[in-house]
């Protein structure tokens, strides 16, 4: 089904192999684009049912062609650049925000030996790369040359920095338990049981902070449509708006993969092939993200920071210390 990717990694680095790498990346990009279309439709349908309305149901059977119509509309819209905008930064900002979300897929372990790169610091790579998106959001907000995007960009920066700490701290518990920061190694360490059970505290901290990193309700303060219009992407339209949306939805997928890998045994599962299990687990995460969006109201900006620094960070640290103590105690007994 999927190519044996690690075979290519250990092969000599020639031009032909380089071409193959580009082809593989292209295939991944197409898969993600298809996923984003499905997620757009799924989100509108699920939100519709949560709010007791049918959702899109006119375009195609059951409205399945709605995302196609959405995308065509976005691509044909005029690409407005505000007069006050800093044109160069305005154009590059959505790219800076989207590219890292795609780069995270390099370390996703689909099955034994099916992964783009077998990095021994894969988890760190994931968190490091996602940090770049903050720069895209800040510069997008700034370069629009208007007040609401600037506010949204600043909110985004503050929120993403604050929630990155508990996120990394909660991941460290898993890394400590698995004894490796390699994504495939972490999955292999979950042969017997999922880390979800022993790392339940870490999972709570992880799930909340990863939701905050995704900038979605209840953490969509950088967009906050009832307060600051649409936040950092207020002035964007057409294709560049599509890039922002693409980045947001790609992150839900990527974070789903991370969540499944760290806490739910990655490719482990009966009967079905490994990559399908990982996909199913990631899609459950995507559903959860849509579900929380339809259920919870937006947080207030003053409670947002207090929650990250005074509740989530101590929780993740406590989890880390408990994990270290238990691991040392077990090592002492045997």
């Amino acid at each position, binding site marked *: 089904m999927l190519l044996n990717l690690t075979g290519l990694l250990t092969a000599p*680095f*020639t*031009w032909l192999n*380089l071409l193959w790498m580009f082809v593989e990346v292209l295939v991944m990009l197409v898969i993600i684009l298809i996923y984003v279309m499905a997620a757009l439709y799924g989100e509108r349908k699920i939100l519709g049912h949560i709010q007791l309305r049918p959702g899109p149901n006119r375009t195609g059977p059951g409205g399945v062609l709605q995302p196609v119509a959405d995308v065509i509309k976005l691509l044909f819209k005029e690409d407005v650049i505000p007069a006050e905008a*800093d044109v*160069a*930064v305005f154009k*590059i900002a959505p790219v800076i925000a989207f590219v890292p979300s795609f780069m995270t897929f390099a370390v996703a372990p689909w099955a034994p030996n099916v992964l783009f790169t077998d*990095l*021994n*610091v894969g988890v*760190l*790579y994931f*968190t*490091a*790369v996602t*940090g*770049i998106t*903050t*720069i895209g959001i*800040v*510069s997008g907000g*700034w*370069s629009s040359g208007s007040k609401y995007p*600037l506010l949204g*960009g*600043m909110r985004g*920066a*503050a929120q*993403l*920095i604050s929630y*990155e700490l508990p996120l990394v701290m909660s991941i460290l518990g898993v890394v400590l338990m698995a004894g*490796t*920061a390699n994504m495939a190694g972490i999955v292999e360490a979950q042969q017997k049981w999922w880390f979800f059970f022993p790392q339940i505290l870490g999972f709570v901290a992880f799930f909340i902070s990863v939701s905050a990193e995704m900038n979605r309700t209840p953490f969509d303060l950088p967009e906050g449509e009832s307060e600051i219009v649409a936040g950092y992407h207020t002035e964007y339209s057409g294709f560049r708006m599509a890039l922002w949306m693409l980045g947001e939805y790609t992150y839900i997928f990527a974070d789903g993969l991370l969540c499944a890998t760290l806490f739910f045994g990655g490719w482990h599962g009966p009967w079905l092939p490994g990559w399908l299990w990982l996909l199913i687990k990631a899609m459950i995460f995507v559903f959860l993200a849509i579900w929380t969006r339809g259920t919870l109201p937006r947080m207030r900006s003053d409670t947002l920071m207090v929650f990250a620094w005074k509740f989530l960070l101590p929780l993740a640290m406590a989890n880390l210390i408990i994990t270290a103590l238990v691991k040392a105690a077990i090592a002492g007994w045997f």
Partner: protein
Amino acid sequence: MIDFFSQPTNLWFVVIAFLTLIASLGVVAGEKVMHLALNLGGSFAGVAALFVLLQSPFLAIAQVLIYVGAILVMILFGLMLTGAHATEPTGVETGKKVTVATAVIVLTALTIWGVYGSAGRWPVVPSGLDTSLTALGQALYGHWGVAFEAASTLLLAALVGAIVVSRREDDEA
């Protein structure tokens, strides 16, 4: 020269080094403060890519995590709070520019002379060091434990100092 480019790694090195230099040039030659900061980010990312080429993924990731993900975001955040629309030219006098340019040229010449003058005197061999996370952790918390803690204390002192300085200005105002 043909031999040099037959290795894709060498070509990558030239491309990445070139992009990094362009970004670095943007940091010193640009006019808008925001552009300088973003170019700095490009320069950091380029150095991280060079670390990858040198087969040190951990250093590359640390470079991105700390310099791009933390320091650059802090710089941008600071710019936003203190007037990110600072679009005026940085306004350095010609005399200073000449001094700096001279210093840069002399230092670069010295470096190139040092590198080529010493060519062949020291053998270039792979260090053979264990670059795994486990080895790194054991070195940091074992052998270099005291130095590590001393650096942490220094950083903590700097943080507390920054808070004290900024708070005192608050009280006077």
